[in-house]
């Protein structure tokens, strides 16, 4: 955990998060564009194998690019990674990537849909399309993250996540390979956290661990109460 010492995560930020832990986050969505390969390669490998929230990613790619990003992440990460399949049920403990040249959407029953609709923000897959449908599916149980990129995709989607009570995180533009996308997200929304990549990783691990611990504590308390009664 030493590599997080420079994360810039202030102790008082953690306190804010404890207030939110009870909201029971269920899922993480990430939007990333230019410079994304490096950003994801820093962000995801430190996540522990027991990290239970599904992580759903739109990375802008050229339409003819294959699914090598999933393979790459699979090799480097403790958490399993794959390209999202149409109608696939979203499972805990997986990283999912949008296939190139398709929009990725999440249905209410937490399965994936794909579409070949027109590009949004000149992009297919579009981050806004994923985030908007994720808000419908998860409501306030959603964590939205915008990382490096050279366009404005994702700003509107992150705004929706915030509006619906989800947690919003943006990569610190000063540390991003391409600051335009993080900046346009920050312009539109007063986000919960602005952090460099290691800080985001650490925050995710802390929140997820706390939620799992909280769940167990909750179960214990209920059992205890029943026993007393």
């Amino acid at each position, binding site marked *: 955990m030493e590599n997080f010492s420079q994360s810039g995560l202030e102790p008082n930020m953690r306190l804010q998060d404890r207030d939110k832990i009870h909201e029971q986050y269920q899922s993480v969505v990430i939007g990333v564009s230019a410079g994304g390969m490096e950003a994801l390669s820093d962000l995801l490998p430190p996540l522990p194998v027991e990290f239970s929230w599904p992580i759903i990613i739109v990375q802008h790619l050229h339409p003819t690019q294959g699914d090598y990003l999933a393979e790459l992440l699979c090799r480097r990460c403790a958490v399993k990674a794959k390209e999202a399949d*149409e109608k696939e049920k979203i499972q805990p403990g997986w990283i999912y990537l949008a296939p190139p040249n398709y929009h990725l959407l999440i249905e209410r029953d937490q399965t994936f849909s794909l579409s070949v609709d027109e590009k949004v923000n000149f992009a297919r897959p579009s981050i806004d399309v994923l985030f908007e449908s994720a808000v419908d599916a998860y409501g306030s149980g959603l964590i939205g993250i915008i990382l490096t990129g050279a366009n404005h995709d994702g700003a509107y989607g992150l705004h929706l996540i915030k509006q619906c009570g989800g947690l919003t995180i943006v990569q610190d533009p000063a540390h991003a390979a391409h600051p335009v996308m993080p900046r346009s997200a920050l312009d539109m929304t007063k986000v919960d956290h602005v952090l460099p990549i290691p800080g985001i990783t650490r925050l995710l691990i802390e929140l997820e661990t706390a939620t799992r611990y909280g769940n167990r504590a909750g179960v214990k308390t209920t059992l205890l109460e029943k026993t007393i009664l």
Partner: protein
Amino acid sequence: MQQVQDIEIDLLLEAVFLRYGYDFRQYARASVTRRVKSFLAKSGFKKVSEMIPQLLYDELFFEKLVQDMSITVTEMFRDAEFFKVLREKVIPHLKTYPFVKIWHAGCATGEEVYSLAIVLQEEGFYDRATIFATDFNQVAIDKARQGVYRLDRMKDFTANYQRSGGSWSFSEYYHARYDSVIINQSLKRNITFAHHNLVTDTVFSEMHFVLCRNVLIYFDKALQDHVLKLFYESLIHGGILALGSKESLKFSWVEKYFKDVDEKWKIFRKAG
């Protein structure tokens, strides 16, 4: 708040079905929600439910909705490699028949039908084929029949064509005029364009090859199953089915009646 909008969308789809017979109720919901919302934003109404009376009484307003619900963005030789596989694995099989019937379901504005026609022509097989190209969107069908496209799209189409293994001069297949091109009559002569709704209409018969790419992704599982059954019944024994590369037979009972021709590009042969 979200839930109220879901109810409104349910009511709107029900109204459209009862009034006009167009059934979007079994479409994958996330995409429908997106499209209804974007239609709402353009409509001048504030709430989805406010559009329902207008849809019931104003046919032109309904026609506009259909256009928005059926936007299919397509291009010539989309997934160039798929067309390469068509040349290498599907056409040789089709050539074993003296004459073939091909059904291109969900052809939208026709770019892919003409791509198929070009492949057939270059493989010396066009004259032995009849293509039925269908869509539920009449405006799209009319555009497909005209075969007029924007000139500025031709650059991408040409690159796709070359990646698909095309070695002829692509510009021979159309005439440019001002900002548009029109597809050559010689590519159109064996294509029949027709209105057909996969959700509510019945089978085509005795097809040797059914092509339906990136349509099933918009349907829920039950509707996918219904449409795959339609394709199964339309195909002759040994006939070929080609789906979009992200579509599959996995969730359908018809899977056991098909064998893989190309796993990656989701091409199957009816074997049972």
